[in-house]
């Protein structure tokens, strides 16, 4: 069952949305269900759109032409770069942390 976002990457809706859109353009509902599947996190509709607003303002994602009432969003080049940087950072920290845990 999908859980409530807590701390870490699962508690960062913006990162989760960027990761979801890395696969291709999606509208709000599709992003929400995708995140529930790959991260096991249930984002509320309010949280989702607050994060989308922030990402659009920072030009990390961009709205596309509307299909019905739902408007798909796609990752911008800047968004892809930001996502890659953050994931690489997280991987580096995870590797170091796990390594240190093994030595203790």
């Amino acid at each position, binding site marked *: 069952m999908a859980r409530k976002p807590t701390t870490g990457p699962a508690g960062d809706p913006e990162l989760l949305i960027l990761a979801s859109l890395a696969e291709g353009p999606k*509208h*709000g509902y599709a992003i929400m269900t995708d995140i529930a599947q790959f991260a096991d996190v249930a984002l*509320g*509709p*309010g*949280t989702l759109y*607050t994060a989308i*607003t922030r990402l659009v303002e920072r030009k990390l994602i961009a709205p596309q032409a509307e299909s019905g009432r*739902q408007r798909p969003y796609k990752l911008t080049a800047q968004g892809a770069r930001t996502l890659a940087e953050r994931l690489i950072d997280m991987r580096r920290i995870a590797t170091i942390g796990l390594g240190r845990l093994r030595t203790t």
Partner: protein
Amino acid sequence: VSRRRNALVALLLLTYPRRWREEYGPELEALLVTSTLTPRVVVNVLWNGLWQRGRSAWQAGRRPFRRRAATRIDPVYVVRHRRFGLLRRAGVACLAMEILSALIGGVMLRNTSEFGGFVPGMIFAAAMSVPLVMTGAFLVFLPAMSLARWLVRDWSNVLALVAGALLSPVAFAVVVSSSWVIEGMAWSFHDHWANVLSQPRSYAILIPVYTLGGVIVALPGRMDRLRLSKRQR
């Protein structure tokens, strides 16, 4: 059930600011209509709506200092903005500022031991502080703030601004010097001012003129916008 659900969704959307609703409202509405509205979802949307309101208010507060300061100090300045939301918000803030200024002015004047040869009382202090704030806002603050923006663009703007700025103090002087406004004809300086401000007739003259001044001041900005929107069309 569906009607009640739609009403609830519409209510939830109202917690978001208008500008946000125009941009994202239909999408969020479509999402809410297709989702199960559990209490958790309702609280989530409510909380985020209020968050967005706070956020947009904070962003509005980051506008250039000149405009922000003007909207806090002079209610007439906000007439130039056609958006009701801004007018309302700024109006409430202005009113609070004007009341505060009047109170501070009143206390300061009351504590002055000598003022024109007599010890001023509270009525006199309040009576003096109101026109001082009004005139100060009209004559000094508003033109200074607005000239910087309009001067280089159009001289007719400046003329309209000056006309608007002069109207209020002129009207005030007319009211003060007209004996027919003041009942009882108490002509000592203290009583004279106190009388003027205690007569409803004074306000019947001052408020429309003050508003007219605001409209004249607001007109150039409004005309600029109309010209701009015509050109864009």
